[in-house]
């Protein structure tokens, strides 16, 4: 269970850590198996993610995946962000141990949940 240097760097200096006070979209997801948590807040304008901030509780892969995710999606279109895959996140960390793939899954799930919530709120507004 050795972690890559990039992985460790994400742990030591998390990218985009924190919370956006008046976020356009947010989600907090819990991995029901192990209790790990990921919270994501986003500023969105013109269908593009302007800022992304994350908070995470749990084992190191969850922290690192949150960091990699938040860094990666900043500047992406909503569509692109919705398509971010586990593999992309794992790649950004130079790989994840086989048993720790669940952390990337949590990250993917959280960003989609946040974007779904955003879409729903748009929908509500239109209505």
């Amino acid at each position, binding site marked *: *269970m050795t*972690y890559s240097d990039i992985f*460790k760097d994400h*742990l*030591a200096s*998390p990218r985009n*850590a*924190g*919370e956006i006070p008046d976020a356009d979209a947010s989600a*907090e997801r819990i991995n029901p*198996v*192990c*209790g*790990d*948590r*990921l*919270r994501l807040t986003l500023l969105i304008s013109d269908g593009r993610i302007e800022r992304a901030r*994350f*908070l*995470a*509780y*749990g*084992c*190191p*892969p969850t*922290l690192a995946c*949150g960091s990699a995710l938040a860094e990666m999606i900043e500047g992406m279109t909503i569509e692109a962000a919705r398509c971010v895959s586990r593999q992309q996140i794992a790649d950004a960390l130079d790989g994840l141990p086989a*048993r*720790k*793939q*669940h952390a990337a899954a949590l990250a993917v799930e959280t960003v989609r949940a946040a974007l779904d919530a955003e879409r729903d709120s748009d929908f509500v507004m239109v209505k």
Partner: protein
Amino acid sequence: MRRVYLDNSATTPVDRRVVEAMIPYLTEKFGNASSVHFFGQEARAAVDRARREVALLINARPNEIVLLSGGTEANNLAIRGIVENVADHGRHIITSLIEHSAVRGVCDALEKRGWEITRLPVYDDGVVRLDDVRAALRPDTVLITVMLANNEIGTIQPIAEMGALVREERARGRRHLWLHTDAVQAAGRMPVDVEVLGCDLLSLSAHKLYAPKGVGALFVRRSVRLTPQNIGGHQERERRGGTEAVPSVVAFGAAAALAREELSQRIDHMQRLRDHLETGVAARVPDIVFNGHRTQRLPHLSNISFRFIEGEGLLINLDMQGVAVSTGSACSSGSLEPSPIIRALGRDDEMARGSIRFSLGKDTTDEDIDYVLEVLPRAVENLRRLSPLYQHALADRACVVADEKDVLAPAI
């Protein structure tokens, strides 16, 4: 980078003096202790000397010491060796909830094969109660196996009291009840005396006391009979087959001798630094809990739960700054495994996941501890800043302040 090793409960470096004692037995004095010729006799004599030293460390006799491959094998041989031998007399075993995985695993495996296991609680101080042992005793109980000191929180269990209980039972005519204790963590860190403890079996591992990994011993009180587990050859008076690991055994003996001679210095030294560490952490880091009984514990170990964060993240952050510690929680195979030991103290999952074990050694220095006190608070703070649990708690506390115009709640 400065490196500070505070994981001496996982393993210890081999003492230079021990390395020197062992090296000749790798090279010139390489005989097999079972050989009749000069090389063999030289090895045999060295094994005998080492066996005496190991025996002296725990006030046993040399022929009560079975040398084997480590603490895990000692626990396996003790438990399976006894219960298989007396399976016709009873199949009930009493153990605790905080045993090392070797004892826990063997008991679990025996349970699947038809034995009944009672696992005693340890309450919030991490200590088994004698009354619980007494209450758990049944006519078909053949073995009590409770560790002398716990590996994760360092609490010392009342083994001498259990030994007295077993002897009382024997005095009443009970013949098939034995007491085993896993003293792997205790040896070299507190006085261990099989006469004081009154145990029938006691496990030791060399690599916890500055000798190499892969060698250990089981004390088997004379007259106690075991079903051997590793069969072959006549070694160890038929109790454990296999060519004796002469160099490792010699090292074990040398380390045992040093542990005996230096015991009180080591205890004083480690306890002073450990207390310095705990005072320092308490002063610098809020929202922590010390785990385990405050006094009835080993002198070298401190187990602290850091709220809002998970242990492995802290461990890796400390490791990146050269500080080696361990955590009982291990998020492996995708399932939550908060430390079962900390859970047994009645703490919630968050506390169990956020626990860190600092275990000092005889060579730990004041500077080592100062360095830890420098880097640890920052590492905790950084992880907490990331933690949604912490942010939620901050928000809650802010409400309290706002509502009640009160100061921040004290560390929980």
